[in-house]
């Protein structure tokens, strides 16, 4: 009787995305399995100045948080614009994917995605300059994320030197 209709069961906000962690120890199948059971979310596009307190306040709206790990620049050990939020239950994490993903924190639209689970070392950016990879190559100016992308910054200073 409790017939469920596939056509009505759409819950696309909690679907696993295309992203796979290249540093994950295990095969694709194992990673996907963990993603489907995970209680941990990756949160991206944070301002460098967004605090753990702000993250806690926002993400508590979908349930009790077990822990937050702020992403750090590998060299400077300062916040570099991402974090992990781990909930006690999967259901609470799903609510965050449905209702907090794509809304604003600190005036920025943040993005959440399933994470296979925090492991020591994953709190560091993987870009060459120490921050996130995306901040290596981007061309735009983002004052909340260190200004221009790292590559663009180098070009600018080269240009400045050349034109001087």
């Amino acid at each position: 009787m409790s017939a469920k209709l596939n056509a009505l069961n759409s819950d696309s906000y909690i679907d696993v995305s295309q992203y796979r962690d290249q540093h994950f120890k295990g095969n694709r199948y194992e990673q996907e399995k963990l993603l489907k059971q995970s209680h941990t979310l990756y949160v991206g596009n944070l301002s460098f100045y967004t605090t753990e307190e702000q993250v806690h306040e926002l993400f508590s709206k979908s349930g009790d948080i077990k822990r937050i790990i702020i992403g750090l620049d590998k060299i400077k050990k300062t916040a570099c614009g991402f974090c992990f939020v781990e909930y006690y239950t999967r259901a609470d994490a799903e609510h965050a994917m449905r209702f907090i993903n794509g809304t604003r924190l600190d005036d920025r639209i943040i993005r959440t995605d399933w994470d296979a689970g925090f492991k020591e070392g994953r709190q560091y950016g993987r870009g060459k300059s120490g921050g996130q990879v995306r901040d290596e190559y981007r061309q735009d100016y983002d004052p909340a994320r260190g200004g221009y992308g790292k590559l663009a910054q180098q070009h600018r200073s080269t240009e400045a030197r050349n034109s001087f």
Partner: protein
Amino acid sequence: MSRRRHSDENDGGQAHKRRRTSEPIEIEDRLESLICRVGEKSTSSLESNLEGLAGVLEADLPNYKNKILRILCAVARLLPEKLTVYTTLVGLLNARNYNFGGEFVEAMIRQLKETLKNNLYNEAVYLVRFLSDLVNCHVIAAPSMVAMFENFVSVTQEEDVPQVRSDWFVYVVLSCLPWVGKELYEKKDVEMDRLLSQVEGYLKRRVKIHVPMLQVWTAEKPHPQEEYLDCLWAQIQKLKKDRWQERHILRPYIAFDSVLCEALQHNLPPFTPPGHMPDAQYPMPRVVFRMFDYTDAPEGPVMPGSHSVERFVIEENLHCIIKTHWKERKTCAAQLLSYPGKNKIPLNYHIVEVIFGELFQLPSPPHMDVMYTTLLIELCKLQPGSLPQVLAQATEMLYMRLDTMNTSCVDRLINWFAHHLSNFQFRWSWDDWADCLTVDLEKPKPKFVKEVLEKCMRLSYHQRIIDIVPPTFSALIPADPTFTYKYIDESTSSLPGYPAAINVGNAIKNRASNEEILTILKEVPNPNQEDDDDEGESFNPLKIDVFLQTLLHLAAKSFSHSFSALGKFHEILKTLTESDEGKLHILKVIYEVWRNHPQMIAVLVDKMVRTQIVDCAAVANWLFSQDMAHEFTRLFIWEILHSTIRKMNKHVQKIQKELEEAKDKLEKQQHKRRDSGDDEEMEKNSEDEDGQLEEQIERLQEKVESAQSEQKNLFLVIFQRFIMLLTEHLVRCETGSVDISTPWYKNCIERLQQIFLMHHATIQQYMGTLENLLFTAELDHHILAVYQQFCALQL
């Protein structure tokens, strides 16, 4: 069975199969998709889509009849907002295939019985409504529908049943009448009159003690918060007076009248309502939320009146849309905004009213609070030229009526508004609310603004708040969330704990061992005793103060730092807080050092409960203590208390689940043994296993009992404290001949209500104890009324 991949498969949404395959699974998926999607935006008219679909389904009946039956029954239950689309479809099928119509009706009756058995009363309403609309489609004969309604209404004659049971049966009948009243009255007016007069009699003698507890506002003006059955009755009365003329509901079957009236009708089998079972969970009564009327929409279509049946239908449909699509906010917003007939009504106002109605619903909203915030943001995105204005207007109205708004609802409004603002750069015309600066800060309006600004600060930072409000609002700006360290420098060196604080601080920084730190702490004098006993083991508040203040000061940088500190020194903290006084004092110290940062207090208390440094009862006692009396009306106090109660409840549930799982495991094991081998040795081994499991079950049983006892004690502590505080206030007012209704009193009595409402499921278990020990007849009637209203909710 290999599935060929179509190279031209489109992405996103349902993959549309361009080629007919012979795979049954794919055809079934296609049927589902076709049926679910009919009625949505299309290049063809709804009528032609229904005609086409009826043809397709008729052709598929020989091979897929059961599947089609299953899908149609499911959409009847799960897509009530598209009721008339599907009844028309069934009508067309019945006209083409009488037997199918009969089988569908039977399947629906079976489904109705199942849903009632499974306590799915809200879905059962949709099923009955579907059946009643089938009368309009010539599938079901009107007299047999009337007979079903008569059986439902006769439940009101039952004795010794909960009122919520007969309520439900009356509600079902009344709520079908907007759809089918006209037809039933044309065929059986005498019977219908008799039915309605029975309903009227029932509604008159119904007990309505529960209503005040469910009302969002205590004031009757501008919109009374009507009990839902009263409102629906008034709406049906008006519909009857209008001779059942109803023009809002979309009725596709009218276009097919010539076809449908040729069809043969079926009689509903006689349906006896299932008898009352003790474990039945009927829906709780509710109050109809209204905040707008025809004066509020400045231009455009007029809002239907509060007792018009149109209002009922619109609200029902909007609630159903949210229920269907709440998980997908973009779809939900789009579906709400494309409501059929939207050009004739001020749709934005209806949507905002329905959403706030759900958000403020008592005891609790149907969905998570944050869902409504995000849904409103999506709606603003889709209608940027009109919806934000309606929302602003609504916010203004809610602000104006704060004085009489239920405290639980004010909490939700605070959280919603701050979160909403944080998505829109905190832009708001604060000056419009300058009136809140002219009254006592404990009054609802300034209190509201203060709490909103505090929440806004949590989502941003202190300076931001200063920047966003006019300078005149400075008294309402939250404190800068800084740490207050008692032993801060030489100016405090005369304090008795100062030397030890310095030593402890250095020891921690130098990564001293726990033993070393405990040795330092032994030196701390005990202000409570003349002579310390040898071990210094008894409760020494100064020791706790010195250690915790210093530790938290060193770890003040962030939540993570503080959590890490609590974890590292868990042993010492447990030792210091062995006694109840110790537990209470640690909470006091946390408050003292972090009183400017309520968010930090909350997370630290949470951590300490989870790591068992303090227990739940200690938290309750602390919050109700004299030391915290000046903070008693602040939101963070209640957030901490409710969070603590929830942790207690989850803890009990967790152990109960472990116990159930162990019992199941034992049962399975015993079954396996019985069914399988007779091998003597195997039997001995499994007997040992059984023995182990039985021991585990016994231990878990004890654990459950102990947890439940702790839970009961927690509620007793909380209720006792409330009673003490409220009684004190009431007595003081009476002796001084002063009005009891101070802002403090309103807050306190509604906080007591809130405990009942937010945790009613758990509290039900302890009703006996509560009634015998606490909520006795000797209690002041103001306090007892809260308890009685709560009991009335499950009458």
